[in-house]
């Protein structure tokens, strides 16, 4: 007998956990992806702060050289 004929519709209380499971998987993957992207953006921001600090140090050094 083909499988679909052998598998009648599940009752709501049993089907509900599978449906919830599928949608939760989708949402969890989305949330994990967004969390990874948030971590990446945090790293970019930190690097940008470091670059800005280097640029400011350079500016201060060149000012000192001019005044000397």
């Amino acid at each position: 007998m083909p499988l679909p004929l052998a598998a009648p519709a599940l009752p709501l209380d049993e089907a509900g956990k599978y449906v919830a499971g599928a949608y939760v998987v989708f949402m969890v993957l989305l949330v994990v992806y967004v969390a990874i992207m948030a971590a990446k953006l945090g790293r970019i921001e930190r690097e940008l702060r470091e670059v800005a600090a280097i640029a400011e140090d350079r500016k201060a050094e060149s000012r000192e050289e001019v005044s000397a």
Partner: protein
Amino acid sequence: MYGKGLKPLSIATVAMLAVSLSLVFFYAPLDADQGFIQKIFYVHVPLAIVALVGFIIGGIFAIAHLRTNNRKWDAYSYVSIHISVIFGVAVLITGAIWAKASWGHWWVWDEPTLVSFLIVFLLYATYYPFRYAIEDRDRQARYASVFAVTAGAFVPLNFMAVRMAQSLVHPRTFATAEGGMPGEMMLAFLCMLVAIGLLWTTLVKFELTAKSASGQVKRLRRALDAPVAGGSSRIAPEVS
């Protein structure tokens, strides 16, 4: 540059997802055969369609890269494939859950639709080791583009072969001899397809924006002649 329009796109994606999920659970009728379990269809099938189309789009961007030698297209191709692989993971997991509920098995090896999608997914899973096995960035981008074009051409061929094959248990979504879906189900499905398509576009744009920002910071560091903390990333192509 890549971040332009990201905010309205994100808002449209969230709104469309909310509307589509409401239609799926409160408007679309229960399936006569499968009952409530058929609701998985509205997330599983759009994810599969968008993932496969995303792989093809990755191939089209790769053609643009090979024609113009512009690294921007390589980044587009990489990100399209990357997001589609993530969607592919969701397709396999939601499909396995649906299969377990409907057929009593997590996986059916003699079903062409399932196995063909797994083959496509595994093919694209090899994209990452293939890409990062090459040190030289230009060669890496060129070879990855050739891979993306070849694999992208394989996707529609694979799809057609599966449509022509005799399906054992996996249902066909559209245009079968037994007729299509009722109007309410079709509306919910099409809304969900648009929502997942918007989600794919948003994530691609989000990823490209992050890569562009990262690339700009690295360029700034190089311009300042300072050592790069942590070294350069080999995980993704740089976008300027």
